[in-house]
């Protein structure tokens, strides 16, 4: 008798999880490919404004980044709540911009230097005063190609 009722003891069989690693690996590969390691640790609030008439910056190595915005809450006791500039990993003054541009130029191969672009990553709540000052400094050191980095979206997102 027992020979015939081995199966179907009334228990639900366990769910087969053999394909779980496959699914997880798929996700893993997606994130590995999509990841860009951030090279700057942001100390400021950096919520970019939205625009839809954008051009893509295609040569990553030819871009210099200047960040500006309000300091993060952890730094506000030291640096206040007024918008500040960040170059590389440090807070900087307007007067530090030319030195930064020269250093960046030095680090690039000579034939690439004319194609360098400055990307301004400015928080949307910043006043134009600081942006105007940055632009003025850039003109002084002849770094004329700039790019206002934005999110892609309709301009109506910029109103609160």
């Amino acid at each position, binding site marked *: 008798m027992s020979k015939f009722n081995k199966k179907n003891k009334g228990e639900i069989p366990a769910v087969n*999880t053999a394909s*779980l*690693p496959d699914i*997880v*690996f798929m*996700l*893993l590969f997606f*994130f*590995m490919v*999509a*990841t*860009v*390691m*951030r090279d700057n640790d942001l100390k400021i609030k950096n919520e*970019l*404004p*939205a*625009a*839809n*008439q*954008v*051009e*893509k*910056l295609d040569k*990553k190595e030819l*871009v210099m980044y200047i960040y500006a915005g309000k300091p993060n809450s952890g730094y506000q006791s030291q640096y206040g709540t007024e918008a500040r500039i960040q170059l590389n990993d440090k807070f900087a003054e307007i007067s530090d911009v030319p030195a930064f541009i020269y250093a960046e130029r030095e680090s690039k191969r000579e034939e690439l230097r004319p194609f360098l*672009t400055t*990307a301004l990553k*400015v*928080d*949307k*709540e*910043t*006043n*134009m*005063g600081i*942006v*105007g000052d940055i*632009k*003025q400094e*850039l*003109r*002084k050191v*002849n770094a*004329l*190609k*700039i*790019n*206002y*980095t*934005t*999110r*892609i979206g309709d*301009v109506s997102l*910029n*109103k609160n």
Partner: protein
Amino acid sequence: MARRSSPEVNAGSMADIAFLLLIFFLVTTTIETDSGISRKLPPIEESEEDVVIKQKNIFTVLLNGKDQLLVEDELMELEEIRAAAIEFLDNGGGKGEDGCDYCKGKKDPRSSDNPDKAIISLKNERETSYAAYISVQNELVAAYTHLRNVRAEELYGESYSEMIKNYRDVNWPGNKKKLKQKINNLRKDYPQKLSEVQ
């Protein structure tokens, strides 16, 4: 002698390892934005003699400290500026050599001569917010793109935006040199003359 089959490796912990890696990448990922509005700043050395530009060829946009928009001395909403800029750029009021045979504007002699002479001057104050400034820049660029689109449809039967997209696409099968030539023609017809005054 019977050969013993090697025992199967237990793959049960593979999922755990993969999860660990997955969580690491999830946490470290920041999808970087690398697109924006490109501009070229004017060089600093002031030329000795000022170039005389007729007042009617300048389209003044002023964004004040309260983010209010003043276009040609008239208060305007952000939504209206695109149409106003298109009307100004495409006016083509010039005569003879300054004429513009492809413009579709009103040919008003009090407005711009042709798109090549028309200059948009964008002024801001120190208290203007960056978001508002970018919004206005975006609308002005949109005006140029619109005019180029119309012109491209007329000349080549496809829009300027489409051509730019094709030019960027590595898999596009067409002739890129010819396409670049077409794009340059359109840019010559409607050059982006947008000056940012401090």
